[in-house]
């Protein structure tokens, strides 16, 4: 069992710009239609020259990260980061591989360095002047739960605050049939050692029973985007009440998350 504090939350989804809006929507059980476009993501945390280079997925991840850290007492530069994403930016992959089909296989150098799974992590460190440890991980549909474990083990073993960002954008049209996601979604949790606004106890369990969302549109989102597997946890945190949620991990495994308010 691992225990971590949750000191900040970030959320971006169709029609939802930040955790304050997400919390309201979750409390009211009133999500936006999944086809609603993402709010305007500016990437404003980056200097203008870098901002021009980034993609929607990188903006999504940076916005969540910024949301979770805003208003807190921790300087972002001192916080280690874990970026979890099932497949990163498939839109960039689509562009690059399409270019490879052209004569001379011309690839954009900017697209190439933006194609790495740790692109958002790199831009976040540049934006915050942060030299702390950072990792970027994937476990396909289990990427959110894997991100929780990677971040929580860092909090516990290294004794340092860790910002977890989980985000998955929509697949581009060519890859959509092979990797259909219902909507883009991003979430960030600022995890800290010791007490915080909430305390979450994490247990890895053999189970096939997982928490679902009561509202159909939210449940469609939860099942339709790996990062949105976080929704039951976000709903529990939004409620302000103690409680337990079960999040799917790898086949036959789940994370039992016990939320207590401090």
């Amino acid at each position, binding site marked *: *069992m*691992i225990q971590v504090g949750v000191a900040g939350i970030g959320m971006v989804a169709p029609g939802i710009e930040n955790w304050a809006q997400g919390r309201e929507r979750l409390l009211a059980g009133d999500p936006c239609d999944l086809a609603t476009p993402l709010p305007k993501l500016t990437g404003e945390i980056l200097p203008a020259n870098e901002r021009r280079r980034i993609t929607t997925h990188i903006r999504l991840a940076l916005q969540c990260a910024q949301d979770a850290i805003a208003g807190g007492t921790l300087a972002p*530069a001192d916080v280690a980061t874990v970026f979890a994403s*099932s*497949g*990163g930016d498939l839109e960039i*992959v689509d562009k*690059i*591989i*399409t270019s*490879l*089909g052209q004569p001379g*296989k*011309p*690839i954009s*150098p900017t697209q*190439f*360095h*933006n*194609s*790495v*799974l*740790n*692109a958002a*992590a*790199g*831009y976040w*460190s*540049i934006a*915050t*002047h*942060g*030299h*702390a*440890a*950072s*990792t*970027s*991980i*994937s*476990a*396909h549909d*289990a990427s959110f739960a*894997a991100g929780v*474990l990677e971040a*929580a*083990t*860092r909090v516990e*073993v*290294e004794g340092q605050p860790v910002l977890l960002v989980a985000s998955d954008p929509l697949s581009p049209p*060519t*890859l959509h*049939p*092979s*990797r259909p996601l219902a909507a883009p979604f991003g979430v960030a949790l600022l995890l800290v050692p010791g007490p915080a606004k909430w305390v979450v106890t994490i247990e*890895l369990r*053999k189970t096939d029973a997982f928490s679902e969302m009561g509202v159909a549109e939210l449940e469609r989102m939860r099942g339709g985007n790996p990062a949105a597997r976080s929704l039951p946890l976000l709903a529990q945190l939004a409620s302000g009440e103690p409680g337990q949620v079960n999040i799917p*991990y*790898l086949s036959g*495994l789940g994370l039992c998350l016990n939320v207590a308010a401090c």
Partner: protein
Amino acid sequence: MDRSLKITAYTVTTAAGRGVADHLKALEGDASALRPCDFDSIDLQTWIGRVDGVEDAAIDGVLRDYDCRNNRLAMLGIQQDGFVQEVDRAKRAYGADRVGLFMGTSTSGIGQTEVAYASRDPRTGALPKDYNYRTTHNMYSGAGFCRRLLGLSGPAQAISTACSSSAKVFGTAYRYMRAGLCDAAVVAGVDSLCEMTLMGFNSLQLVSSEPCRPFDRDRDGINIGEAAGFALLEWPSDDADVCLLGYGESSDAYHMSRPHPEGAGAVLSMEKALSSAGLRPTDIDYVNLHGTATPANDLAEDRALMTIFDGQVACSSTKGVTGHTLGAAGIVEAIFSCIAVTHDLLPGTHNMLHVDPAIQSRILLEPQLRPVRRVLSNSFGFGGSNASLVIGQPL
């Protein structure tokens, strides 16, 4: 806190051969396994580190959905040096659900998507029906494949931080074990040749038209290679030959594809690795450099090394043997560090003719036989992602 883990078993497959014995021979000698680029339809003046026989190692049976170049390379690699038998022993000792699996990769099986795009339906643009994103291209494909191949059911994930990916797996394994999520861990790094990385590094003008020459006066870029490396990690015991002693991670916060000119992030990751091992710079006998052979990377790493070691430590880059195996480079060079410690061998820097006069560190041109107790190994990647490992005899 003590960061030690016993490295019970390890194996490596690169252009230089399959298994540890082939690589010991390569590191003792001066032959390079690099060859002029002959990969698929790539028309590029460069050299590559290509593993022979990957094309013939098709995956069939229940795991056939995983068939792609990256997983073929993983399967070839995992079958060397009795590694699977060692994992079986660990499974019996701890239970399959108590052995974790953490794999570093930069591009996973993206080559399969390149192949699929090349055979799109000319009318609809649809990808071929037998294309399977999850089991080939997805970042987790190789980790999922090896987890099933080994019959493991513990925690698992892919780590993808470009060229530091499979150095970082060691830290993750340590933390998962320390936090009680598993009792042992298979750590891995697998990356295979694909058009995207060859043409992508070419677009950044980072590939050399000749065999790569790390730290040489005339170095002008990397040779891309492919590799699969695996290690089994357990808690230390009295019979340990070689251990992970410490690890360090940092971010450059400088540029997406260029290193900090003074190697500031590299200094930080080496410092953290040393302090987590409870060691001083003078305790290190050899540094296996990231040493990719681009003019800027090697110079920045030299600056970082001078800051910590002041030219007092022997160091070399083994990229001239294998090429730059990207997401697999971290574990390949961690295993070279294990070989250095267990065979008292300091590898040289293959293909080097004249040390760059701007380089101040003590770069070994030729391999040397002398006692090696502790090695520091560096891996740095795009996005300013740095990782350093300390590997050596138990403390």
